[in-house]
């Protein structure tokens, strides 16, 4: 069986897959290099403006100064440092600097502090980077304000009941404060471009997997396959497993390219910072790196669901070209309909990479289930349903 799976898996790596994967990698690399080079600039440790790809390394070097644990002493020093900095005076004169891709070492700690004030209305602009708040006088006061803001934020954007808010409130109280801060721009880029280019995987899967059960394709289903002793049962399992292995491979190629290019440009430093530095209202005591791994996990599950939809289309249509067109329409529809509000958006596999995975909860009685658990449950349900659909179609598969 292992040998058979391997042979079926190898068949999927044909010219079509090669061209599609190369095109996907080329687009990802070009997007990252061109946009990150053109869009960004940073204030370095000398107070100079550095533009283009070099700005990330300059920012990382400058950020060494602000690394530390955000306790009372740190916050007081940060306020002094920021108020006397070139960055503050520059931002004051250049409105919109941050909004147009500019970066300063103060972004990470100052945005976190500003979140405590703005809550759900926080955004990354240079009008929300100042440190003139009374609650910064003491560490206790700051974290108390932060926790209250998190509770208000959660209640504002989600329709939680009072009882559910009490349960979440207990989670807020258990957050491991005070937090570490530092540089994580490479990881921020990684997350942003992973989300932006994620749809490319679906396109590759639509083209590469559409022939898996087609009768008009040399690597597809033949009379011989269907009439041999273990043809129907064994061959179906083998193809399905190989198909899923193929999905995982494509996904890892995509992630690999993202990690390598982002690592080269801005490094993956900041992996160990607390997730709250990035996802302010996150209630899990995890690191930024672990948070990104959860998003990657959600992305993999979304790709598996889409891949299985393509396999079902392939077996239903039996014709590779029709399956490609139908799969492309389904993929387009899934991507287009992902922007909805509320919990229903979690039904869409294209949203399995959403930040809600780390910040959202679904309640079953008094049990708060994080969204990433819901995504796992949805994936199991979708894949089981699709597997049954493919299996039933394969039993009745005839070549006329």
């Amino acid at each position, binding site marked *: 069986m292992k040998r058979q799976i391997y042979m079926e898996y190898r068949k999927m790596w044909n*010219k*079509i897959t*090669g*061209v*599609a994967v190369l*095109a*996907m990698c080329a*687009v990802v690399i*070009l*997007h990252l290099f*061109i*946009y990150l080079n*053109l*869009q960004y600039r940073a204030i370095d440790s000398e107070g100079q403006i550095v533009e283009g790809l070099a700005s990330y390394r300059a920012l990382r070097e400058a950020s060494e100064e602000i690394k530390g644990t955000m306790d009372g002493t740190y916050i007081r020093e940060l306020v002094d440092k920021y108020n006397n900095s070139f960055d503050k005076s520059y931002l004051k004169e250049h409105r919109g600097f941050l909004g147009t891709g500019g970066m300063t070492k103060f972004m990470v700690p100052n945005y976190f502090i500003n979140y405590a004030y703005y809550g759900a209305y926080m955004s990354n602009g240079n009008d929300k980077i100042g440190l003139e708040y009374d609650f910064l006088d003491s560490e206790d006061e700051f974290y108390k304000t932060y926790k209250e803001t998190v509770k208000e934020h959660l209640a504002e954007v989600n329709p939680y009941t009072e009882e559910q808010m009490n349960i979440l409130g207990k989670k807020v109280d258990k957050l491991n404060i005070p937090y570490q801060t530092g540089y994580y721009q490479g990881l921020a880029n990684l997350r942003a471009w992973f989300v*932006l*280019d994620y*749809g*490319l995987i679906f*396109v*590759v899967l*639509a*083209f*590469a997997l*559409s*022939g898996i059960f087609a009768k*008009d*394709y*040399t690597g597809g289903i033949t009379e011989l396959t269907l009439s041999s002793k273990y043809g129907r049962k064994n061959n179906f399992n083998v193809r399905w497993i190989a198909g899923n292995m193929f999905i995982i491979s494509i996904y890892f190629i995509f992630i690999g390219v993202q990690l390598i290019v982002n690592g080269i440009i801005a490094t993956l430093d900041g992996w160990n910072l607390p997730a709250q530095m990035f996802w302010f209202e996150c209630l899990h005591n995890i690191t930024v790196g672990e948070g990104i791994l959860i998003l990657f996990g959600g992305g993999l599950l979304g790709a598996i669901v889409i891949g299985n939809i393509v396999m079902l289309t392939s077996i239903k249509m039996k014709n*590779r*070209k029709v399956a*490609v*067109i139908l799969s*492309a329409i389904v993929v387009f529809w899934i991507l287009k309909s992902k922007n909805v509000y509320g919990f229903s958006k979690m039904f869409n596999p294209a949203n399995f990479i959403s930040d809600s995975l780390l910040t959202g909860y679904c309640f079953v009685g008094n049990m708060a289930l994080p969204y990433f658990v819901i995504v796992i449950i949805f994936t199991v349900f979708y894949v089981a349903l699709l597997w049954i659909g493919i299996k039933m179609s394969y039993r009745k598969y005839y070549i006329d």
Partner: protein
Amino acid sequence: MFVSVYHTKINLDRYIVRNTQGIVSDWNENLSEAKEKSRALYLDKDCFIGMQNNENRYGYLNNENISDIISVNYEGKTLEELSEADMESLLQIRSDKINENLMMDSKNNYTDTEIARFMDKAGDLSVISMGYSEGWKVLAENMGGFGILLNIVITVLILPLFGRDSGVQMEELVRSARFGQKRLNLSRILSAYLAATVLYFASMMIYFNILMMPFGFEGGNQPIQSNARVFFSLYHITYLQQFMINLLVGYLGLIFMVSAALMVTIILKNLLASASLIAIFYIMLIVIDQLYVYEINHWFANFMPVHMTEFWHFYTGNELYRIWGRSIPCLNWSIIVSLILSAIFLAIGILVLLRDKICRIYLKKGSDV
């Protein structure tokens, strides 16, 4: 046809006037009233005073259109807040605003001569007629999206011309026939462009007729500045002229994709491999279109079909290209570059098709020496 009907339905729904009790007037009543009350209506002091005295003088829709223009021209002021001096200097304020935008623009770095030329154009507009033209406005709003859809569908349809289908296995036989090379290649290339042309114009005409029918065809001679979205445009053209320009630009975007698809299928030969490359190229263009970076749009996306069919930026962006000391508007330069790129793609495709012949000529020359 399905898309045309769907777009028409969506757009007509926008013309239904509702309040808390439900529908106040349906789209038909709303449009008929606008048609009736917009005869000899001009955007001027009399119009503003008429509206101030009687809110319903020009009907709900004309009221909305005029209020939108007031809002963009007078920086958020409402009709009631306008003084007589404001009303009298409508076009002067428009010119000042255009001038301010040109001076503030940090990306194009306009020279004094360019600004003077733009301002001359701004001064050319002496009166803005507000006659009924809702159908043309809706058409201008939606034909870009339809153009992209057509572009994708037609590109998919022409892919099999040179894309080899492994299931058929007839390519070698066809190629070895008497007319299998030169004449067949020429016929396929010509039929690609011909089919694309016929399909594009036929589909656009169907779309035009279906979309315009409920709105009525009148208003094609109205200036595009009667639409708040292009109020500051320096193109002093009518809606009909705008439609013709958009139609042409959309067609050139299609020619670009047809040429690219021919080149890719000739090189790769495999139908689905070519289709996957074209699909990923489209996704890349769509992502680029969502992320606004001036340099990328200026040097790349402006010549690509997705951004080209986002027609609005041509009329309102005032983007310029400085080529050999001349300032060329974005619309003109996009057309030129897109055509040049299409020709280059086609030439590459033809060279690949003639590869064997070219090699034979070289070998023959070599053996003669």
